């Protein structure tokens, strides 16, 4: 091997430094690539880099079950109507107007003209029918499937008008229309295998490398003028929360979805901001199998409800990113009732008295999905709270996929902790759709004719926000508080970490990030 002499080394080092200095000005970041807009206004161009914790699972496309799915749905697809984040009043999206029949059995929607799918085909009423029918197909496991299946008639004779006929009045039909992503009818099979994701959204999926990245380019035929601002979005799948945090801090990504609340708290506020997704609430809860041993006695379930320290969960686990609840409804919901929501305030003495009435209680298995620090910490707190009142539980952390399978199959024994959603929608949606609450079949194996009747009655009221519906929700709430097959702990508000160089980030009620109005160059 030739030895490198001192002179050659110095010459090579000098040449390298000079080259670096000369080429550095030519390197431009994505932020710099964005063309400057009017002073203080949005800028066009550049590519947004985002990081998510969990990848896309095409077979779960209609289930909102992973950050990969919600990212693709939010960026590449649109729904017929859109709820603002703090209400359930529909606003136009792919449907521009609608009219509900007086008997509540039909809904006619006028569709937006000139909307193009990513493959260049125009959106018509046939796509509405195929998307809703696909959502109703059991193979996709959509949680609002029961509502979708209650749409029994489609009039698609006109391309820009569709009439939906219902089996019975559906108080939550707009929840369905807000939720179902409109998919190009010809690409549904490819969607199932992840070969194509063809929607009408502001960005189109150009590549998906499983476990690594999802790449989106601007949809040039997007129907909103001048949108989106960015040329594209590069989403990296970073399955480790520490690496996700490092990527955000080092500037490799401008948006992180999936960071712990503690990490978000610790982000320096001069360079980052934390967005709290109001309206996309989730609920942290303790589920119970009402057929398992002592749990069949409602007094034990009441003892658990009195024993848990909800405020501590909010303060120490959620870092203030939520609030304690006894019922699932968020504060703005028409079903929310302050008095009912405080019925099981922490009362250790009452819990102990109930336990004493019951006598000997067997050790109860307490299952939760491993890997989520919020759930793990909550389980540890609940276990200690229950031990304090004389209820012994054995923690049983299991794999997330196994947990979900057992939850959906109502195979979890004892008690469990996880999140649920859908209470941010029309209240009847929760009790006829979500796995933990569904009156027809739920994860707790709870059966009650009265509960089923009340849930069904609330669902069938055409105006899901009217006074009649609110009264019906009150009855459902009483059922939930009396039966306590599910013990609510806290409303959880999803949070995202964002670089201050990125502006205009929005979200949907299903925690889908929207980057239509997002642009780089701030901060």
């Amino acid at each position, binding site marked *: 091997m030739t030895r490198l002499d001192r002179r050659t080394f110095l010459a090579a080092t000098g040449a390298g430094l000079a080259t670096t200095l000369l080429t550095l000005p030519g390197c431009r970041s994505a932020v710099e690539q964005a063309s400057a807009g009017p002073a203080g206004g949005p800028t066009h161009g550049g590519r947004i880099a985002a990081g998510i914790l969990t990848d896309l699972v095409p077979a779960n496309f209609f289930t909102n079950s992973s950050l990969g799915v919600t990212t693709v749905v939010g960026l590449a697809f649109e729904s017929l109507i859109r709820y603002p984040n703090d209400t359930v009043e529909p606003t136009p999206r792919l449907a521009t107007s609608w009219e509900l029949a007086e008997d509540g059995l039909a809904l006619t929607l006028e569709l937006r003209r000139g909307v193009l799918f990513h493959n260049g085909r125009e959106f018509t009423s046939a796509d509405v029918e195929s998307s809703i029918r696909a959502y109703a197909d059991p193979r996709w496991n959509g949680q609002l499937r029961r509502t979708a299946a209650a749409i029994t008639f489609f009039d698609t004779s006109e391309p820009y008008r569709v009439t939906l006929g219902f089996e019975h009045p559906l108080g939550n039909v707009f929840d369905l229309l807000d939720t179902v992503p409109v998919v190009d009818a010809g690409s549904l099979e490819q969607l199932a295998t992840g070969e194509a994701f063809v929607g009408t959204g502001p960005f189109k999926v150009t590549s998906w490398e499983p476990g690594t990245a999802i790449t989106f380019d601007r949809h040039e035929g997007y129907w909103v003028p001048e949108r989106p601002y960015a040329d594209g979005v590069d989403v990296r799948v970073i399955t480790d929360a*520490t690496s996700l945090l490092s990527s955000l801090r080092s500037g490799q990504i401008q948006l992180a979805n999936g960071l712990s609340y503690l990490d978000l708290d610790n982000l320096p506020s001069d360079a980052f901001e934390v967005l709290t997704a109001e309206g996309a609430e989730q609920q942290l809860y303790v589920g119970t199998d009402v057929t398992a041993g002592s749990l069949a006695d409602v007094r034990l379930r009441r003892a658990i409800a009195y024993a848990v320290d909800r405020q501590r969960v909010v303060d120490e686990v959620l870092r203030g990113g939520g609030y304690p609840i006894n019922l699932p409804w968020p504060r703005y919901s028409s079903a929310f009732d302050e008095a009912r929501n405080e019925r099981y305030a922490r009362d250790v003495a009452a819990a102990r008295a109930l336990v004493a009435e019951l006598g000997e209680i067997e050790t109860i298995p307490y299952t939760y999905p491993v890997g989520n620090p919020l759930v793990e910490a909550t389980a540890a707190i609940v276990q200690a709270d229950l031990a304090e009142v004389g209820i012994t539980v054995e*923690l049983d952390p299991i794999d997330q996929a196994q947990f979900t399978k057992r939850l959906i199959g109502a195979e979890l024994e004892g008690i469990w902790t996880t999140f649920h959603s859908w209470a941010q929608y029309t209240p009847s949606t929760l009790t006829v759709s979500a796995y933990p609450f569904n009156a027809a079949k739920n994860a707790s194996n709870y059966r009650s004719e009265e509960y089923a009747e009340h849930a069904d009655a609330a669902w069938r009221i055409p105006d899901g926000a009217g006074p009649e519906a609110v009264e019906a929700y009150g009855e459902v709430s009483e059922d939930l508080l009396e039966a306590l097959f599910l013990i609510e702990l806290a409303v959880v508000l999803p949070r995202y970490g964002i670089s201050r160089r990125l502006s205009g980030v929005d979200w949907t009620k299903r925690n889908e990030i929207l980057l239509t109005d997002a642009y780089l160059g701030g901060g």
Partner: protein
Amino acid sequence: MTELLTRTGVDGTVVPAPAAVEPDRPEEAAAASRTRSRSWRALTRGRGLVGLVLLGLVVLAGLLAPVLSPWDPLQQVPGANLLRPGGDHLLGTDQVNRDVWSRTLHGIRADLVVLAVGVPLGALAGSLLALLGTLSGVVDVAVQRLFDLLLSFPTLVFAIALTAVIGPGTWTVVTVIAVLETPVFGRVLRSAVLTVTAQPYVEASVAMGAPRRWVLRRHVLPNARDPLAVQLALSLSLAVFVEGAMSFLGIGVRPPAPSLGSLISDGIGYAESNVAYVVAPLVVVVVVVLGLQLVAQALGRAARGVR
């Protein structure tokens, strides 16, 4: 290998009476004493001594955990959320207000149980199977294929599969370690047996009609002790990693009981709030592994006659 350990003479005739070939006992005893003394010297000076001291400190800390812990390792102290080291909490507190110092000490105990049961069980099972293989060629082939099968599983894949069947917990970790160490010890012992039985003095003993059990006890096992001791130290250090990895993946010791692996796994996410939460158990793991490696090296050098 098996032919040499049967009671058949070199000419094919059955050789009687082990009493007729009783060896020179003082010479055997002297050889065994020399081996013991070499190992003892290795462990009482240099790297062996350092290794033993490090291990001793950790074992002592684990054994005295109830005395040295100011808090119950499961107690959630009101208001003490993710405190940094100092005051009432030497290493601070964790995300649900438990004392990290107390949990680390009790985590050592959990690891000691896993190591003290899992590895010796694997060593015993492996050795017995290896000796079983000396009975006949067919048994030896069957045992070796079983070892091949067990060795073909990556450790964590096997751990995850077993956990899916019997659930997580301390005894799952013990079972994983025992099963995975069985072929390792089996192969080490078999190799030692093959080497020793090929020695002329063993062949001579067999030719003189020494019974199989006697040959094993007098010649084979004493000479296989050194490689087994070295392997034991190495396996113990690997078992620390297996426990750590399983608990890190959430399939190890069942919470809320602490173990070194689960403490590291949990602590990583909170390093920014309390760095001692992750560093303390990590340091203990490093000390244990370093101690065991030094002991293994010292014993290995002694076995090879290296000073």
